[in-house]
């Protein structure tokens, strides 16, 4: 299997299978949370699930028992509306109790509609107003540079619709000029935003050319192929004096047939019948 740049990883099938199963569980948990809340964003959470899984369960230097570990890597969810995928991952890691997922978006509970670092352990930065997480990530990356903490990195996941924000391009310009090579952006390029298809609302392509013109190294991958994802993340370890943008082609609503590529499930919870089908497709009782 090859990605668009003709390269892909060759990781052990045990590792790939393990990550696949973890991602499947995370999809089930995030959907159950959204279903119980009858509120939240399933589409963009599902599209990001494989990448978030690869980061938390394989790539990142991260200790769930010591979330303030001073050697940890950072993960910033700039597309904060995909919070359920991060919450499910944190619950799988044991950073938050699994029971918290039952109270997503409910008054008096820690899991806010968008990530809140003050209320939820494991959240590095509160996000939700689109366009801001990338700048925050660059700030952290610069802080790591100042402190000469060379082994640590900042991963930031950006929505494709979010790429329409002006602030994103301000920061892409600055990060490229600074050559901040401990910053890894990952664009969840699922092609759909709230109002419909990104291409029709305000096309952001060609992303590779744009990012490269702004002096970023780019890696294009299939954001649901773990060989691709792991390859891109390992490739981003090479310090080449440039920030890295992983352009991950994904499917909005990935894993649930009727949500896939369906703008209706950007920010809508499934009903009872839909939930039953979704869980069946994701192999809840497997």
């Amino acid at each position: 299997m090859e990605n668009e740049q003709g390269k892909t990883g060759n990781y052990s099938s045990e590792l790939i299978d393990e990550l696949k199963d973890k991602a499947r569980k995370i999809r089930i948990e995030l959907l159950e949370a959204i279903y119980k809340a009858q509120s939240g964003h399933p589409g963009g959470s599902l599209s990001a699930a494989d990448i978030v899984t690869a980061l938390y369960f394989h790539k990142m230097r991260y200790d769930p028992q010591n979330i303030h570990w001073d050697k940890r890597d950072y993960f910033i969810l700039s597309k904060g509306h995909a919070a359920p995928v991060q919450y499910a991952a944190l619950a799988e890691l044991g950073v938050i109790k699994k029971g918290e997922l039952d109270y997503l978006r409910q008054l008096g509970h820690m899991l806010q509609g968008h990530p809140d670092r003050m209320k939820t352990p494991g959240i590095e930065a509160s996000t939700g107003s689109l366009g801001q997480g990338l700048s925050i990530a660059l700030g952290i990356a610069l802080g790591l540079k100042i402190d000469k903490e060379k082994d640590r990195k900042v991963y930031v996941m950006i929505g494709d619709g979010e790429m329409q924000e002006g602030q994103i391009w301000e920061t892409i310009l600055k990060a490229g000029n600074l050559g901040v090579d401990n910053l890894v952006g990952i664009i969840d390029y699922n092609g759909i935003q709230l109002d419909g298809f990104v291409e029709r609302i305000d096309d952001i392509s060609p992303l590779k050319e744009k990012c490269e013109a702004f002096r970023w190294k780019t890696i294009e991958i299939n954001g649901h192929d773990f060989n691709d994802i792991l390859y891109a993340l390992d490739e981003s370890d090479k310090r080449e004096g440039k920030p890295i943008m992983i352009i991950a082609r994904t499917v909005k609503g990935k894993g649930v047939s009727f949500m896939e590529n369906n703008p209706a499930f950007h920010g809508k919870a499934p009903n009872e019948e839909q939930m039953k089908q979704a869980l069946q497709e994701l192999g809840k009782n497997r």
Partner: protein
Amino acid sequence: MGEIIKQSLRESYAKTLIKLGKEHQNIVVVDADLSTSTKTALFGKEFPDRFFNIGISEQSMIGIAAGLALKGKTVFASSFAVFASGRDWDQIRQSVCYNEVDVKIVATHGGITVGEDGATHQSNEDIAIMRILPNMRVIVPADAFETERVIEKVYGIKGPFYVRLSRENFPVIYDKDYKFELGRFDVLRKGKDGVIFAIGKEVYESLSAAEELEKEGISMTVINASSVKPLDKDLIYQYAKEFDRFFVVEEHQKIGGLGSAIGEFITEERPIIIKKIGIDNIFGVSGKADDLIKYFKLDSKGIYNYIKTVMGG
């Protein structure tokens, strides 16, 4: 008063930053292509590794500042007040205040005394839009000495601050022994007939007006209310018991500024009349700073005339 000595608040800011920067390695400064004007370039010259000129990108600047703070830095972010507060308001709200990070926004060029650049560059709304933000604190120093004390003080207190400085050099009111306390006003002059609360340049203008009023037999207390948020509630309450009317003078719109802040607090406690001397809900215009201050009746003469008329002198 003898010869008026004026000093630059911006230079005092930069000088203090450099002094703090030498003592504290965790101070980082960001600016958005106005560092020559805000004077943060002086810090950049001294500490190139801890200074970032982000370019004309205020939104990105504030996000980067928030990120640096999340990595343990105390970040000073500077631009002109109109841009530092307005162009990036949502970033300040979300990335700084909601995240409760240690970012100090030190805005220069507040108010109409920006002068010739005109309405687009004059900031008469910044106090209103900054003080409404949860977790934000707002300070408006009255001279170069107070600026130094304020910058030292805000460095020592974790969390977001907005400090409003001016393009203009301000007449010196304090000396090096002055101490600034958050949530405390400073009574500069005591009078028995009325009380003036003022901030920024208007502290000096109010003191001058009070001197002239004294000659007319009107004896005014003048208070430097630099700690706009948090207010000195005890002091306000104390004066509200003494007087049934406050005068509030500020180089800011009457909507949402110091006068509003004082009113929001004290009218929950006592009935009181608050006479606001500030700028109406209009945009500024180009002109020399001194001419504009007169045009908007924020010079000592304007304050004197207003108070004399109201007090029936």
